[in-house]
């Protein structure tokens, strides 16, 4: 029985009297592949941002491998790919990778970077400034930055938005490969097709969990109300 990597214990987030996430209890095991679904404003991004340590909890606790979310130890284990790509204005794609890898102490060669970029269909733009890319290309750059560093838990928020068909396929392959490497992934998505590939689907509605288990695309449409 695998140990839980992520433990969410009564975690809640509210802004004044607006409840973004109801008190939530959840455990995600090492190597587990989770899809987080829900309509717009259901609390998916809030939950991911809480786990990533980007938001402060109103109540409850979240630990990653025993370390409270947001601490340096937890940040070292968690890679968060936000839905809105966060990129520097003045670095090329390759320079982004070299910088982020350097900050995380990863020993990688330019061939390693290029292989990753090639997989994501970004190699031909490696020397360009991603801040001026289209939404899809920026999303691919953001994903590359998310996986170039070491992590045990990968949080990806709406990764398929803006991606073309080949980009989508490349990302799904990458997530499959990470799953094979026993990496824990939580992907917030509206894509019912992706849900077929995962062992666990958590559905949120108005900040509360309404489903936790396996799900088919039809289930997702029913749960999300799409």
């Amino acid at each position, binding site marked *: 029985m695998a140990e839980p990597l992520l433990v969410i214990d009564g975690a809640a987030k509210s802004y004044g009297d607006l409840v973004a996430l109801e008190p939530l209890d959840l455990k995600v095991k090492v190597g587990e592949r989770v899809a987080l679904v829900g309509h717009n404003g259901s609390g998916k991004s809030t939950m991911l941002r809480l786990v990533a340590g*980007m938001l402060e909890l109103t109540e409850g606790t979240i630990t990653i491998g025993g370390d409270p979310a947001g601490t340096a130890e937890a*940040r070292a284990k968690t*890679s968060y790919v936000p839905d809105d790509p966060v990129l520097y204005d*003045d*670095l090329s794609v390759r320079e982004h990778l*070299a910088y982020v*890898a350097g900050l995380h102490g990863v020993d*990688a060669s330019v061939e390693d970077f290029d292989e990753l970029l090639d997989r994501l269909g970004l190699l031909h733009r490696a020397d360009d400034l991603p801040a001026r890319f289209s939404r899809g290309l920026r999303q691919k750059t953001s994903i590359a*930055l998310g996986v170039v560093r070491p992590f045990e838990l990968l949080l990806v928020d709406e990764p398929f938005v803006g991606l073309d068909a080949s980009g989508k396929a490349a990302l799904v392959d990458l997530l499959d490969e990470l799953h094979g490497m026993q990496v824990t992934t939580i992907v917030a998505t509206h894509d019912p097709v992706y849900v077929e590939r995962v062992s666990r689907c958590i559905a949120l509605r108005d900040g509360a969990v309404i489903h936790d288990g396996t799900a088919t695309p039809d289930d997702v449409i029913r749960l999300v109300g799409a």
Partner: protein
Amino acid sequence: MAHLRSHGADWIGLAAAVVIAIGVRSGSRGGPLALEHADVRHVLLAPVDRTTAMRGPALRQVRFLVFAGSIVGAIAGVLATHRLPGQGAAWAACGALFGATTVALAYGAALTASGLRLRSWMGTLLALVLVAWAVADAANAAEGSPTTVLGRLALWPLHFEVIGLAGIVLAVALCATGWLLVGNVSVEAAERRSTLVGQLRFAATLQDIRTVLVLRRQLAMELPRVRPWVRVRVRGTDRFPVWTRGVRSLLRWPAARASRLVLLGVVAGLALRGAWAGTTPLVVVAGVALFIAGLDAVEPLAQEIDHPTRRNSVPLDAGYVELRHVPAAVATMVPVCVAGAAAAVLAGPSTAAVAIAGACIVPAALGAVAGALVSVIAGAPTQTGGGDAWSLLPPEVAGMRVVYRAGWPPALAVIGSLPVLAARTAARNGVGAPPAALAAGAGVVVVFVIVCGWVRTRDRIHEWWRAQMEMAGRG
């Protein structure tokens, strides 16, 4: 007085040239009008005559600007009566006329440039030629700068010259031309300005200098170069990632930013030369110029602050990463200060000037970086001080804190320029000036180290402070 009669018009003309140059550059980038976003979408895209639609906003804007220009000019005229012969009313009237004419010229030039769809680089070139010609005329290196006629207009109480009327005629002609071309505005530029100018004004209201800087760059389309000046190839993980990142950022600077920093360095150098000659307040001018340059020099660090999601994803203290951005900023500012030192020396060459300027380079660079670091990291001053505990302070104390937050960063840059005053005092007392500048520079280094310590440990300080306030609250 003789000097004023012979050269006063040239120097006043230089000031007018700068104002007109700003107008030309604004026009070549879609200015001077900044319409509401909804007006751009609904009015400019509607099948109505754009000239008619744009004349109303243009008239309101020029009316206000000419009024403001005449008030400023009148105040300058009144101040002139304290030192110059002639009737106060005459100086005030001529000052007002000069202010209104200069502003009208600048506005007319902007409208005309916009209506002619003048390319941005052409606008910049035209502005540079205008200012360079005025500088050369003031320095007696050239003759016939067109803006000198505006200077003659301002000095009518001393000596009436009909040629001064040419400035007024030109201003009216340019405004009329702009008035005819106002409908030819670029919709693309108008849309960009409509979004950015509103944000810019809001950020300026909040004294958010970093946001003002970023928005101003966007307004001027001042973007990092796609191809760096010198390519530093990526060979894998960077050994010194933060330093390398800073160098790569620097190598993508657009020419306009590099030129601006050199210009600011020269302004600071000349101001410090003036301070050395006896006009002490010019130290503030130098400090402010270096502070503005410093804000550009700390750009890689500012990008970290702008992207907290990325910064917080690194399992390192924010202060650890931010401190490592400082060497690149200092390395950027030192050449800027060298340019300033060169300008100061060229303004009055001597061996002593070289020694004093050399002693002041590093302190000036460190002061500018220290000021910019504090400004960028501390962010915009907030009315409540950014925390509940501060919001409990009485308004008088909170107000003082806001003033302190706004004034401290440029003050640090001014501190970096103080070794010049130390050298001046030493020289007046018959003591060696360069050693005095070096000794004062050591004090600046101490201040810089303290600022660096704050950068590294401020999160812990804030944490400790929060814990203390919570304990006090529980108590």
